[in-house]
């Protein structure tokens, strides 16, 4: 492994075992990835435990933060899905907080970004895809197939439109997972590369340092933005499942 290489931008994504574990011959060791998943949920829980410790009419800072995130996601869900989305709110809220904290913890140097691994984002995207498909068929029966043939399209275009719609529907989990994973991967790699340039250039390193600071601000924005995008797309897919006519 390239562990000794100071500018290997990929090293930060490597998974190292902390405690070895096996169930039925499958390796499920507790790794640095698992550790940072635990950190992410611990950060979320800390935020809410502190925010909910003194529930008052006039909130303190932590309560304000937790209510802000609650209202943010609740409004997003209400705007995108409507009142029928209420049942899925715990999942959407947890999803947002988990991705948000994974992205943000990953920005701290020497940490690991859970969401930079495609398998993690794909697990979420695949779960969402399966859930949305099942919900769609449960709520609309076979009428859910209408989403492949939008209303107002002339019948002779159906052979063209329907395959396109099917492909776009099936590619949703892939685009959803790759978007988040690639953003995290590319962003963190670039940060690492510029950090490496600072070391390599010695005295002249201040130039990449300035750039790194700007880039870090951009990555902070992207960390929040990608969590938002992932969540809002989930809401949009959920809305498609609940209201296939629109």
């Amino acid at each position, binding site marked *: 492994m390239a562990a000794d*290489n100071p500018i*290997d931008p990929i090293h930060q994504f490597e998974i190292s075992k902390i405690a070895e574990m096996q169930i039925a011959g499958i390796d499920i060791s*507790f790794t640095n990835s698992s550790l940072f998943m635990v950190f992410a949920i611990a950060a979320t829980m800390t935020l809410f435990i502190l925010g*909910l410790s003194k529930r008052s009419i006039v909130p303190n800072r932590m309560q304000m933060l937790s209510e802000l995130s609650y209202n943010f996601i609740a409004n997003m869900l209400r705007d995108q899905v409507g009142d029928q989305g209420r049942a899925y709110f715990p999942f959407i809220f947890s999803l947002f907080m988990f991705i948000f904290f994974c992205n943000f913890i990953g920005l701290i140097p020497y940490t690991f970004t859970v969401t930079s691994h495609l398998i993690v984002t794909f697990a979420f995207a695949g779960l969402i895809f399966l859930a949305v498909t099942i919900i769609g068929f449960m709520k609309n029966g076979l009428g859910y197939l209408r989403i492949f043939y939008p209303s107002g399209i002339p019948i002779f275009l159906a052979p063209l439109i329907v395959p396109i719609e099917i492909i776009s529907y099936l590619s949703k989990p892939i685009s959803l997972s790759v978007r988040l994973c690639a953003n995290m991967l590319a962003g963190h790699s670039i940060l690492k590369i510029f950090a490496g340039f600072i070391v390599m250039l010695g005295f002249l390193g201040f130039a990449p340092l300035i750039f790194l600071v700007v880039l870090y601000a951009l990555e902070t924005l992207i960390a929040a933005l990608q969590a938002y995008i992932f969540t809002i797309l989930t809401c949009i897919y959920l809305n498609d499942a609940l209201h296939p006519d629109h």
Partner: protein
Amino acid sequence: MKFFLKIFIFVLPLSEAYAEGQETAGLPQMDISTFPSQLFWLIITFTALYLFMWKFVIPRLSTTIEERKDKISNDINDAENLNSEASKILENYNDKMNSASLESNEIVSSSKATMNEYLDKLKKDNEIKINAMITESEKKIHQQKQQSEQEIKKATIDTIKSIVSKYVETIPSDDEISKKLN
């Protein structure tokens, strides 16, 4: 972002050159052997988070937010009630002010009227008195005039008598003189 990607592509072989002689397995993301562990821990941690959010966070947050909403709407209601009460009181006050000013106007006008009446009466009484005095004094003047006329007549007769007595023996009587004078 294309610029960054170019640098990325440029640096990748560089880093691999540094890592010469070491195993380069490509992206760690493609290492399938880590997948079961990641999935397993993802399921455990995310389920824990989901249960925490579902059972602990959301009920508490939503009740807090609902309570605040209720409190705010209650307070707004109270404020509205108080506001309407205040405007009622103001209306009352204005009514009272209006009626009081009307009353005071009435009092002023009635007192004016009584004063005028009194003054008129006073004037009339005085006029009557003055008239009475005038007629009395006129009477007195008339009397005095008549008296003085008679006295003048008597005096004239007496003067004539005395003058005539100096020249004539027979003194004419008073009647004769007065006839001659007229």
